[in-house]
């Protein structure tokens, strides 16, 4: 029994240490947002009174609401379009099977793990030739068709009961009506999980916006954090405040939709 207790204690200690290390940066970030840069650098770990000043400094350096607006706009439009295009295709590949399309689908799977680094150069040339640099269209367009999400929807569609579709057909619904009024409501949880993944990816996207977006008024929140961090004398109070602001939306999504969140992460790569 005592050996059991000892081992138990060991497990709890191990997990508590891991949990501490996991949470500490969050704590550091929240506390840092309320302190002066000089205090942060010297390791102050108690909440300070500099939050308002940090906020004012941030507002004087960046058009924060505009930047947030840009991030939200890009993330929301990307999410809607990605979900629409990918779920249509996932449904199409699964429900209407043909040999040609099956071949195409297998071909797409080959491209599943093409690294973005390989696409970045030609995409940049394409976008600049189309004179789309520094537009949100350029940020959003290449991310809409996602093989990951398409694959995810096709897998999920396998669980869509064919009786529902047959019944809808008997009722005289057209195929697009079946998709819109039967499939979509039935697959709510699949859409929820995919929404979280796509929104997170778009919200956190860095490399492509960094390449495409150039003027300050078009920057997203990730670009702003990166620029603040790269400054010659970084103001850590302002940086940590900005990371808090950038992390809050995804944190809220996580706590509200924890189950779908984890499901999406597991599903999107299965």
């Amino acid at each position, binding site marked *: 029994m005592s050996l059991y207790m000892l081992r138990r204690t060991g497990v709890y200690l191990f997990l508590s240490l891991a949990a501490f290390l996991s949470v500490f940066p969050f704590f550091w970030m929240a506390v840092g947002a309320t302190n002066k840069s000089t205090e942060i650098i010297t390791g102050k770990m108690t909440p300070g009174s500099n939050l308002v000043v940090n906020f004012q400094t941030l507002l004087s350096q960046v058009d924060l609401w505009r930047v947030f607006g840009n991030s939200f706009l890009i993330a929301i439009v990307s999410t809607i379009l990605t979900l629409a*295009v990918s779920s249509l295709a996932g449904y199409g590949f699964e429900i*209407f099977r*043909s040999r040609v399309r099956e071949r195409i689908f297998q071909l797409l799977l080959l491209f599943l793990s093409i*690294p973005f680094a390989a*696409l970045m150069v030609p995409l940049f040339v394409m976008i600049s030739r189309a004179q789309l640099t520094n537009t949100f269209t350029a940020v959003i367009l290449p991310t809409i068709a996602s093989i990951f999400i398409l694959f995810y929807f096709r897998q999920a569609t396998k669980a869509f009961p064919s009786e529902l579709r047959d019944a809808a057909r008997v009722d005289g619904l057209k195929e697009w009506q079946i998709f819109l009024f039967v499939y979509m409501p039935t697959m709510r949880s699949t859409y929820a999980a995919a929404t979280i993944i796509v929104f997170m990816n778009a919200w*956190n996207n860095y490399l492509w916006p960094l390449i495409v977006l150039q003027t300050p008024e078009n920057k997203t929140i990730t670009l702003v954090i990166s620029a603040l961090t790269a400054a010659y004398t970084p103001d850590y109070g302002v940086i*940590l405040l900005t990371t808090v602001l950038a992390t809050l939306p995804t944190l809220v999504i996580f706590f509200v939709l*924890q189950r779908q969140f984890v499901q999406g992460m597991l599903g999107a790569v299965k």
Partner: protein
Amino acid sequence: MAQTRLDRNEQINGWAFVMPALVLLGIFMIYPILWSLWMSFQVGRGNNFSFGGLANIQRLANDALLVQALTNTIIFFIIQVPIMIVLALLFAVALNDATLRFRGLFRTILFLPCVTSLIAYSSLFKSMFSNDGIINQALMSLHLVSAPIPWLTDPFWAKVVIISAITWRWTGYNMIFYLAALQNVDKSIYEAARIDGIPGWARFWNITVPMLKPVILFTTILSTIGTLQLFDEINNITQGGPGNGTMTLSMYIYNLTFRMMPSFGYSATVSWVIVAIVAVLSIIQFMIARDRRRGA
């Protein structure tokens, strides 16, 4: 007659549903990939291309920076991935115990780093690991070191920072894969082993690890592909420095394309190095998945 019309309708619908995705993938994925292949045989700066035959491939062979970037990537991979996977496995096994208290809380906390954006957390780590930052303060007040560790100005320590950062961000992510897999492991195997008096560690190595082998391989490959594409953290914490000590392939391609004298042809060639490695890994992954399906 009615049958063929139905068939034709199926065909039309089938294509209509998949067409938007196919068109977009064609324009923004297939076409750029093929173009990048063509580009990789072009030499010249900016928008002046000319066919260079194998010139870029020759340059590849003599590129010391590329070798360094590859070496760094391999170091990150060889050290970081095993640490992360062992930790994730230990967490998953500990949390899979139904008698453990605060399971949900521990799981949520350990998963929490996955919620942060790569840029946000790398800024956070940069501030924590700065020369007189909190990490050095803590180490010094605990008398573990006598002088501050040059985390970001020494190539070795900079690698340590990057490895710690990635481990912090991704361990919880891998953990949920193992937790999901452990839920499918038959509990009676463990019962039998325990009754036979097999100790905990032996149960872990001889039952859990072999049972989870497919998932472990899968997450290993996923992490490797991730390491090959490492960019956000590097660009934000070290910019590839000091002395190219944390330069990665993606960072190098970015520099070749947008920082130094742009040479699109050569950066496309370097990007195909990544494609080649990823392709090999994907084939391995595919074979594992096939074996698994056959085994099941």
